């Protein structure tokens, strides 16, 4: 398996933690619905961080 594919697989969120995506989704949704930068900023940071959560 190429390095990129292995990295992508290794850094994806474990299935048991799939629920964690609900948090950034809720925060970004809240930010969009109310045009409030606070939840949107927290939500986008959280989403990007979770996407790298398994990187080594």
């Amino acid at each position, binding site marked *: 398996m190429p390095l990129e594919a292995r990295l992508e697989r290794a850094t*994806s969120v*474990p299935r048991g933690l799939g629920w964690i995506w609900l948090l950034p989704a809720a925060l970004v949704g809240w*930010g969009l619905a109310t045009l409030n930068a606070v939840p949107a900023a927290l939500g986008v940071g959280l989403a*990007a*961080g979770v*996407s790298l959560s398994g990187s080594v």
Partner: protein
Amino acid sequence: MLLPPKRRSLRDVRIVGAYFAGSLGGALLTALSAWLASGFTEPLGATSRVVLFALAAALIVLVKRGPLAGRLALPENRRQIPAEVFGASLIRGALRFGFEMGTGVRTYVPTAAPYLLLAGLLLARPTLGAALLVGLGFALGRAVPMVVQMASIASGEGPSEFFLKRTREYEPALVIVLVLAGAGMLIWR
């Protein structure tokens, strides 16, 4: 020799705490740097920012996941953080490891989301508070899954199938949509 369960548990908490503190420090440093650099986009109007963000996002997604993958490369540090960071002490090692992970620039970046986030931060000219919130969110996102897995290993369960199976099917599209929508809103408002 294994430490008694109570002392082991206390040490695990300190390691996890050190990892999160390091991760937070690294993420805040990167967010602060991006916030400072966003001052260079001050002269641009809202429409120009949105157009630039759309173009940058398209390029990032094409390079990371589209037909330009393998032809163009986005900047990344193509190495793993060395195990030597844990050489002196587990707690100090966790702090340093977390810091390097938190910066987002010290190891591979296999997803498009951090690049989209950086482009969004540069073009949004957020308030300092909003930029630091992005850093806080990034640190939490980087740390929480690892903390949960460490906790399961520390409790003696080990990484079960529950943790080893991946969510790869929907994750890339979901995170791209989330970061595009959130960063787009920060730029437009």
